[in-house]
């Protein structure tokens, strides 16, 4: 709503009528499109009972979807914890006063942000075993890949978050006698985490979705089990993909809702990222921030 406050004047009576008409016209058009899609799917026999019947049977859920979902959630949860840790570590590393910490941290972050996750996971699974002379389970290939990539993105988000905290906050902390690492730990990182909560959560949503790339190393996650393996048995690949997509959407929406709720709660409790005062120092111009939409 804040956007509308920027853009639009408060509507008068004519504007209200115009908006209503637009609503109806667009709504009807949209409904027509959806109907066409439905009819086409019908024509192609995609709504046929035998394609959907498996989803009324318990084994489909207990043997395919749920085990896959469990692997997905487990890998995502592990990846989230690790990439948050990685993110904080490297964000702080990149803000270090010592170039020999700052530069390597920067190289690592930039590299992993630039390499497609698909390649990363594939390499960890097939290449790293040569380096460590032992197998890498698919689970860890996926989790480590997710951690390196999302951790790097989160590192940048945290860094931007930390830099967006007004200088006054750390000055006040120094002024009561805190050391640099206390200021980081007690003041800057917690505030950056809250300020960046929306970005962090969208990145975690990205991470959850990215577990789907585990198919490349046959990691038995939701997409592998619920679409490929299920449809190998039942020949209903489109129906299965629709169900699995719906599951992803529901879970990710729940995650987003949870984050919004947390965000609102912290705001209600009065936490507000302090406004940048017009200090003459050179904080970066506040740009818009969004997650990086890998797979």
């Amino acid at each position, binding site marked *: 709503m804040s956007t509308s406050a920027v853009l639009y004047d408060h509507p008068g009576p004519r504007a209200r009528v115009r908006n209503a008409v637009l609503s109806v016209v667009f709504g009807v058009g949209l409904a027509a499109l959806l109907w066409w899609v439905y009819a086409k799917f019908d024509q192609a026999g995609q709504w046929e009972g035998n394609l959907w019947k498996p989803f009324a049977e318990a084994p489909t859920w207990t043997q395919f979807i749920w085990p896959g979902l469990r692997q997905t959630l487990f890998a995502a949860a592990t990846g989230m914890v690790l990439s948050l840790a990685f993110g904080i570590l490297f964000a702080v590393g990149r803000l270090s006063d010592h170039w020999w910490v700052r530069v390597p941290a920067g190289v690592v972050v930039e590299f992993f942000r630039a390499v497609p996750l698909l390649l990363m996971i594939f390499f960890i699974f097939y290449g790293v075993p040569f380096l460590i002379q032992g197998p890498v389970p698919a689970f860890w290939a996926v989790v480590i890949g997710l951690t390196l990539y999302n951790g790097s993105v989160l590192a940048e988000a945290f860094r931007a978050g930390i830099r967006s905290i007004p200088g006054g*906050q750390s000055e*006040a902390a120094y*002024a*009561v006698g805190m*050391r640099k690492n206390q200021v980081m730990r007690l003041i800057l990182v917690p505030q950056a985490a809250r300020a960046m909560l929306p970005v962090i959560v969208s990145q975690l949503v990205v991470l959850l979705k990215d577990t789907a790339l585990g198919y490349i190393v046959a990691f038995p996650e939701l997409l592998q089990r619920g679409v490929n393996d299920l449809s190998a048995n039942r020949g209903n690949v489109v129906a299965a993909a629709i169900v699995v997509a719906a599951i992803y959407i529901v879970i990710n929406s729940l995650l987003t809702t949870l984050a919004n709720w947390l965000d609102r709660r912290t705001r209600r409790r*009065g936490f507000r990222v302090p406004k940048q005062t017009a200090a003459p120092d050179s904080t970066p111009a506040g740009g818009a921030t969004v997650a990086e939409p890998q797979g």
Partner: protein
Amino acid sequence: MTTGEPLIVLDGVNKWFGPLHVLDDVSLSVGRGEVVVVIGPSGSGKSTLCRTINRLEPINSGTITFDGTPLPAEGKALARLRSEVGMVFQSFNLFAHKTILENVTLGPVKVRGEKPAAARERGLALLDRVGIANQADKYPAQLSGGQQQRAAIARALAMQPKAMLFDEPTSALDPEMVGEVLDVMTSLARDGMTMVVVTHEMGFARHAANRVIFMADGRLVEDAPPAEFFANPRSERAKDFLSKILTH
């Protein structure tokens, strides 16, 4: 009110921001229990002066001594020094993610290693002293500006500082809240706290300060008791400045 050797001594301090000479050979000494008000036009270096005293800004040349020892350059010693010099900012700078009470106890617990319970008790007493004990569990954003600034003063006092620095503590406040903050500061002054106060509140300067210092272009232009300064500013710059802020 000055007793014994001075607490804060600046001697020939120079500071540049790039090509800008922000502090130009500033020498100043503040005795124990003394209240010094610093005034001057915007950009004259008042904030910078204030901030060099607890080394939030390093200086390029000259020396600053606090309580007999030169300011340490870094590390533990610097942190200890800072904990002995309270600082209050124009924009309050309360820790936005902590409650008022946590703001006040954070320093004692994390820096001084006090027991949380003890710090809490003393914190509440301090909040009571500045008149906002009932706001202890709120977050900064839930308080009015005046209340936030009083909390910031309590936070500084919690470290039991030997001196307090105020950088325009009331200029971000709605006019009807200025009074409550000045009241707290006046009572501190009366209790013998050593204070360096950058402010435009001439009322406060008149009745609470021992000395008024006028700065312009990084230089310390006048240094006189308030009565003398206001009645009879010696420099043109000071006269001009006073005429600007006193007439409207």
